[in-house]
């Protein structure tokens, strides 16, 4: 289980996170990226780690809980 955060000052909205981890990252009503689930586990956590590695500006934070 881990907490997911986005550094909005870094984020350039590449959209890679929504492509790779669509269960966790999505688009809000204004088409801005949003974190749909801030706490993730299992396969979603694996996807978030991949999304973080694919983020061109290192804007995705993944911190293990506890």
């Amino acid at each position, binding site marked *: 289980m881990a907490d997911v955060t986005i550094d909005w000052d870094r984020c*350039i*909205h*590449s*959209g*890679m996170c*929504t*492509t790779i981890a669509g269960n966790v990252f999505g*688009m809000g009503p*204004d*088409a*801005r*990226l949003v974190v749909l689930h801030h706490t993730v586990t299992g396969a979603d956590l*694996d996807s978030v*780690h*991949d999304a973080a*590695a*694919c983020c*061109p500006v290192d804007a995705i934070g993944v911190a293990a809980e506890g």
Partner: protein
Amino acid sequence: MGTRRVVVAGGGLAAVRVTEFLRRRGFDGSVVVLGDEPHLPYDRPPLSKEVLTGKVGPQNVTFKDELAFAELDVELRTGCAVLGLDPGRGVVETAAGPVPYDDLVVCTGARPRPVPWNAPPEGVFVLRTVDDAAAIRAELERCPTVVVAGAGFVGAEVASSARALGLDVTVVEVQPTPLVRAVGPQVAAAFVSMHRDNGTDLRCGVGIAEILGRGRVEAVRLTDGSVRPCDLLVAGLGVVPNVEWLAGSGLRVDDGLVCDGQLCAGPSNVHAAGDVARWTDPRTGRSARGQQWMVAVEQARHVANRLTGGAPGPFTSGRYFWTHQYGHHFQFAGDACAPDVRVLCGALEAGEFVVGYGDGRRLVGVLAKNRSAAFVRAKTAMDRGVAWDEVDGAVLG
């Protein structure tokens, strides 16, 4: 601890990401990275932007420190250029001796195309490495007049950075417009006006005939006969893949290491990722090298999946790239070699726009300037396979 050994030839982005994805997927064998530079692996995109403008020091672009590589249980050998490959024996040759492998990932990248003119020993640079960036940064602090050869991404970003420092900048581009292959001729005109609006003297349709100056560059003579004085020349003329070390290996080399759809380079235990890898993109049917940050990462992920028992389909890439020029943020995804081009919102001559590229049936490419949210919406529509005649509704909502 497993006994299998993965050797990664090269020490750039693709190499680092391969090691990270491997460990994330539970690979418990040994991992060895052979990087030819003396530095820790580092990220290249900041070099032409934040490093040149002095916002970020060249020492601050590394992916991770030595401790982090140790925690990842990755043996990083810097200053260790690969010299040859014997796939039959499963050995990479280096100056420090042979390095045996069970699986090899070739990530040796590319290097700048050298300047084709006789150049004096000082004042002429290419930009690829962190050492290049540090040297150019030092020159920018004392050279008020800069000529950039080539208006591709590197050239345009160097020009942008030099203008941000208040320098006199001329860009020389042999094509009639910049970035015509990357964004298509219709949209490339927008980049012409952007350069000129920001005070860069952009000269298209001419090349550099010769560099003038003995000990140091003093001017360039262009192919139209004009002479442009300069204290510094930075050439961004494209790159060539680092494949010479593969001579005699039996692997197929043709402007890159030729791979199949799974990024396998012939022997089943040799794969490639990053700028060196040439593969046929199933979406376009074209053979190409990626040459973009995101393609390198996607390829590293694909190869790590293969090496850890994943059975992914053929490698495909979203072909995403981004660039910052003169304070503007551009993002592209997909394919610009498409017959239909339409401005979906904004205007090409304005400060922001989204352009769609269509193949007659579907939206196949998206370019945005300063419209990040609309870009994501258009890219999502493209990934969903939205029909070309439904693009406006899908993107504009």
